[in-house]
């Protein structure tokens, strides 16, 4: 058995400590992420999906428990340091890109994710052919708007760009936080397909939060259901194939 690349061990996050509203938004959660996992994450509102992501990225420090990356404890490692191996796409198209910078400038920033940035010239022109090539794959005329400030793009184009930015430099773990939720059904489906192709082709390790049960079943090779801050179900590839939408509905109504 291979070793997991990322582990959450007994992770608990308590909020409002010492008040009547004291709550464990993560409650002794255990999760092992293996190289090549494409995990879809389901859970009702307040189940702890976002908190799970935030404890992986370091935006939240667990109250107790350990965060382990490739066998070393990184409980206190900063958000900025974790970007060396992590990248994420936010739900809100506005969050993933810098609005006053152009598409090409955004991609250039993303290409250097987690690296030291010093007084060397950025060398934008050299990268344009590469940027043209990868943006053309998105099939939404992003490649013709490399010099447009991202603030002028549509939500779909911005989200596609955010996805490119998260994958242009290969991450060890890619976190997708309902990245197609703010888009219209057509655009959303297109981006979901590109997402799946990229993850499969490049064998990326990925966690994807979604509220679309079809997407959760259709994509990925592992499915977890969060409930009250802990993992209620964890289906591997074979179990996942046997699941139906009705089964998933049942899990939600049982709780």
């Amino acid at each position, binding site marked *: 058995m291979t070793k997991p690349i990322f582990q959450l061990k007994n992770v608990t996050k308590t909020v409002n400590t010492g008040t009547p509203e004291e709550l464990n938004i993560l409650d002794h959660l255990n999760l092992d992420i293996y190289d090549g996992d494409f995990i879809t994450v389901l859970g009702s509102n307040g189940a702890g999906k976002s908190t799970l992501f935030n404890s992986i*990225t370091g935006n939240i420090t667990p109250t107790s428990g350990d965060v382990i990356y490739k066998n070393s404890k990184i409980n206190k490692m900063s*958000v*900025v*340091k974790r*970007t*060396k191996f992590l*990248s*994420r796409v*936010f739900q809100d198209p*506005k*969050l*993933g*890109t*810098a*609005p*006053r*910078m152009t598409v090409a*400038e955004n991609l*250039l*920033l*993303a290409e*250097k*994710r*987690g*690296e030291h*940035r*010093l*007084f*060397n*010239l*950025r060398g934008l022109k050299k990268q344009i052919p590469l940027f043209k090539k990868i943006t053309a794959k998105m099939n939404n005329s992003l490649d013709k708007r490399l010099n447009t400030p991202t603030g002028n793009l549509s939500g779909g184009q911005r989200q596609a760009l955010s996805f490119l*930015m998260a994958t242009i430099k290969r991450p060890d773990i890619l976190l997708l936080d309902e990245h197609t939720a703010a888009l219209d059904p057509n655009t959303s489906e297109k981006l979901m397909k590109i997402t799946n192709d990229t993850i499969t082709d490049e064998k990326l390790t990925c966690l994807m939060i979604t509220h679309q049960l079809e997407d959760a079943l259709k994509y990925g090779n592992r499915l977890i259901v969060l409930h009250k801050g802990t993992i209620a179900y964890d289906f591997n590839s074979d179990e996942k194939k046997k699941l139906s939408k009705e089964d998933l509905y049942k899990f939600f109504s049982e709780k």
Partner: protein
Amino acid sequence: MSILVSAIGQGLLWGIIGVGLFLTFRILDFPDMTVEGTFPMGAATAVTAIAHGVSPLNATILAFIVGCLAGLVTGLLYTKAKIPVLLAGILVMTASYSIDLRIMGKPNQSLLGLKTLFNSPLFAKLPPYFDSIFIGILIVAIIIAILIYFLQTNLGQSFIATGDNEAMAQSLGINTDNMKIMGVSVSNGLIALGGALIAQNNGYSDVNMGIGIIVVALASIIIGEVIFGNLTMNQRLVAVILGSIIYRIILMIVLQLGFNANDFNLISSVILALFMSLPILEKKYNLKRIIQRGLK
């Protein structure tokens, strides 16, 4: 004519203040009140140093360093002590008043009979006021060239990204706290440098010379933006300088109308308010068409 030349020279020197504030106000996207303190601090530092026999050039460089340090304090209060940036700036601004008095040992200091950058024998042959244009252009060109280069570097791009979208910048591994500290320091360094130059040009330094500086600096930025419209980052830096010159010319015209120097801060605020409300007024009353029709 000589009034116009003087206005252009003043505009160039004050443009440095505008460019300094541009780094925080437009790029990092927050208002930094420290500038009201670092401007007289730069003036006090340079003038006192010159009075103690330091060469004008070294005194000016010293003012830049002192301004950077004051900005550094604001940056640390803001990012590390988590004090809201407006308050952090006001704290340093207030403290700097006492520091300026300590530096000069008295509320004001004259440069009468002392060497400054402007009365160097090099400019003796120039017509009056051309010294400030000469030095202004030289220093503005150096500052803008360095800034343009810096903004094209990987560090500069991270600096812009921090102001544009902090959450994104962090998710790409940019230490946004460091970017803000760097920005506030350099910004205040430039403003102190401007203070040092303006004090040398005026021939004195006064602890109260900082009042209203932020309005003057904002006026340069806003006038440049309103008049020149959509520009690239590099062009915007030049637009600030031009905005500053235009502001000085407007001010000169207003003063010619019979207002006196005591009305200065009132006029500054009115000019800034006018330019800031121009886009709204333009939308409402379609000013451009009215002006165009009037010209036909």
